[in-house]
């Protein structure tokens, strides 16, 4: 069991700053996800922890010991790769035994650990197969077993599921989560898939342009975004232009009391599932906008409404829509934004009032 501390980590390629002074503290046994769009620095951060790349500044400390001066092969960090990186010339068992042989363990122990690791990823019985005979999902299980067999202090996973099809992705991510919980290994997981991040993580670190935007539990990231970027990247978010003036919020032609000290332009953000249409009743204040239904997309258990309102276009999500709800294209509708559910962002991208964001 080991915790990971990262202090002031920075890296540039020529003039491009890929990582700008990153500080993180990941608790022992935590499942920690780095989430962000491609090019945000998440993979660079992961590979720097693994030792495949080298920071310009900063420290990496595992269980109280600095590891950033150690070469990659002495860091004792297990890694799972996006393209599996399974050795195609070795059998499944030899793949898993590969790291154990480097540690010169006795034969009997190697055999035992290989069997144990393969059982863990539900590949027992496949020892003698060659990777080419196996599916992508199975190959990634080999990769996982191989990384776990060396009993690393940290497990790093670099988009391990992005090459798999949707169904396998969900199946394998549950397995990864279960195994990680059972063994309690500190895990850093990189993904650009926000749903995956929400599903598996203890905590998520949203990254953009080499910076940490927000760190929090999946609930906090989704419901209490601290930065406009986190709000827009994780899930769908509507943004409408607004104005704060002397304790009042102006949206479109609507004015409503809003207890905030600040004034100036803001963006009003709300999730589609929190937008209410027509007669829905809600407690507390609402912003009520006149709108028209532009388009309805029926998705089975829900429908998405693209609405034109006086303040701009937004999307609303309606669960379990009724028949007459589907035939609403072109009709006028009243759009209600419950004040409890909205979040305001300053032009800088920071949330206006952390207390009110929920």
């Amino acid at each position, binding site marked *: 069991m080991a915790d990971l501390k990262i202090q002031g980590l920075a890296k540039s390629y020529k003039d491009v700053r890929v990582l700008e002074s990153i500080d993180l503290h990941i608790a022992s046994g935590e499942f920690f996800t780095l989430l962000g769009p491609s090019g945000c620095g998440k993979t660079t951060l992961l590979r720097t922890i693994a030792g495949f790349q080298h920071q*310009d500044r900063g420290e990496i400390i595992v269980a109280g010991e600095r590891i950033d001066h150690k070469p990659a*092969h002495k860091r004792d960090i297990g890694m799972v790769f996006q393209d599996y990186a399974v050795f195609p010339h070795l059998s499944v068992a030899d793949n898993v035994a590969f790291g154990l042989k480097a540690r010169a363990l006795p034969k009997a122990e190697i055999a035992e650990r290989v069997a144990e690791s393969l059982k863990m990823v539900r590949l027992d019985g496949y020892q003698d197969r060659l990777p080419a005979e196996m599916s992508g999902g199975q190959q990634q299980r080999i990769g996982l077993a191989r990384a776990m067999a060396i009993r690393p202090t940290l497990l790093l996973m670099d988009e391990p599921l992005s090459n798999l099809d949707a169904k396998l992705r969900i199946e394998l991510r549950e397995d990864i989560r279960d195994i990680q919980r059972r063994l309690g290994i500190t895990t850093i997981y990189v993904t650009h898939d926000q749903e995956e991040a929400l599903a598996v993580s203890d905590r998520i670190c949203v990254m953009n342009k080499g910076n940490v935007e927000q760190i929090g539990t999946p609930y906090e990231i989704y419901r209490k975004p601290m930065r406009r970027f986190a709000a827009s990247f994780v899930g769908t978010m509507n943004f409408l232009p607004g104005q704060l003036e002397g304790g009042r919020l102006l949206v479109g032609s609507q004015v409503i009391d809003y207890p905030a000290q600040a004034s100036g332009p803001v963006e009003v953000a709300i999730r589609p599932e929190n937008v209410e249409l027509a007669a829905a009743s809600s407690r507390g204040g609402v912003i009520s906008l006149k709108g028209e239904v532009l388009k309805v997309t029926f998705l089975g258990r829900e429908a998405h409404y693209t609405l034109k309102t006086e303040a701009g276009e937004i999307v609303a999500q309606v669960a379990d829509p009724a028949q007459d709800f589907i035939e609403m294209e072109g009709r006028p509708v009243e759009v209600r934004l419950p004040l409890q559910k909205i979040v305001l962002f300053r032009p800088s991208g920071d949330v206006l009032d952390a207390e009110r964001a929920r």
Partner: protein
Amino acid sequence: MRRRLRFDIWTFVLIAAWVILIALLIWPLSSVLRASLIDNDTGAFSLVHYVQIATIKAYQRAVGNTLLAGFGGMTGALLLGVTLAFVTTRFHIYGRALIQTLAVVALVSPPFIGAYAWIVLFGASGVVRKGLSSVGISIPPLYGAVGVILVFAFKFFPHVFLITSGALASINRSVEEAAESLGVSPMKRLFTITFPLILPAISASALLTFVLSIADFGTPRIIGRDFNVLATEAFNLYGSEVGGNPGMASALSIVLIVLSMIIVFGQRWILRKNVYHSNLIKKPERQHARGFKAVGLHALAYAIVIVGALPAIIVVLFSFRRTSGPVFQPGISLRSYERVVSTVSEPIWNTLIFSSVAVAAIVITGTLIGYLISRRPGIATGTLDALLMVPYVVPGIVMGIAFITRFNEPPLALTGTGLIIIMAVFVRRLPYSARSVAAALKQVGPNLEDAAVSLGYSPGKAFLKVTVPLILPGIMAGALMSFVTAMNELSSSLVLYVGSTITMPVRIYLSVMDGEYGTASALSTILLTMTVIAVYAAFHLSGRKESALL
């Protein structure tokens, strides 16, 4: 911010690679450039040699003839190669394996064997010519420009064939079907869709055949008669005991290199934006032609490869003929072989030893450099990669002259040793090996090595344990092909050999020049057999057949 210089095994390899290329490539070639700019008599800097090339008729003719041979050989090889590739990839031809085998036989037999076999058939006292004249048909003997161009065309077309059939087979059929559905006739489609799509392959093989044609020394020498090209002129001026003119030979060499380079850059310019990527969905199908069309297509395909392989076949047949001096007699005999074994077995051993040593060095160095190029990009490796292009455009004759000029004096008095021949072959073939390893490495994801490192192996060990086993078949196939080219190396060895270091190609060349056709045939057959065995082994190892040759 401070920059960390991290030393590992690859830093050392990079330095070693630079040292090798400077010592064996830049330094020797600089001597050629220097000699070309110095007046032979006064020893002062002068452009006199270049002025002479521009003004003296014989040299002007050599430049013109070189271009004629280059473009002629290239055009002929392209016509034959693209036709054969098109016919075999788009129509159902019986015996495709046989066609490919014959093309490969044409490819691996040394070009001067081809020239010599053509003389046996169509020379002044050629078998075919004599046979035809006995029935009243008289054709001129096959010497001069026509002979040289024909030999080049039939010698080099397999390169074009192998490169373009790969490209033709990977055109998405839907693209051609789309053109057809838009109302474009099949013939027009060929020129507006198909050929533009395989332009990279066509231009690459055009470049290759041009460079091979102008660098070739044996063919114009044997079959050219008074058709002088830059390579033969340079050799004559350098090699003659009396009236040698090293400055002029060097200047001609430089002109030859410049011609090759112009073509290389020309090809890059043509391809500057004409590279298309299409995701292959439907592979092209082979049509079943019927009736006269089928007969015609088969005749065409087989005619090309049989004529191409004819020299090799002729040489083998003639090696078993009874000879008396230079004259072939009727009847079968093993006399030629007896004579080879009893009197000239030394070249066989020299060839085997030199080639083996050179290939061992090529494989080790080439693998390490190939790895650097593909896995450690940077300025130092980038220039190294560019520098590796140089041997492609430096003809063997020039490399030989460069070596003999530089390694002539103590402490590097290597002239007359086997080592200098080995070094010349080594530096000439190193780029092929490095490039093929770099290409093979592109198939092996870099993450595999990272995975091994994360599991506790040092970078060096990870390379040995994971990467080497995966690229080993490619390395071995490349090694065997290097072995083939090393065994068949004529031009640089011809400049560098002395009596005790004579190799088979040199011995064959000298035998042909002396008119000892029996010995030449027997030695050629032995060389051809060794070549075919190596090629077969390379095919076997690489799995994908033709790719081993490129």
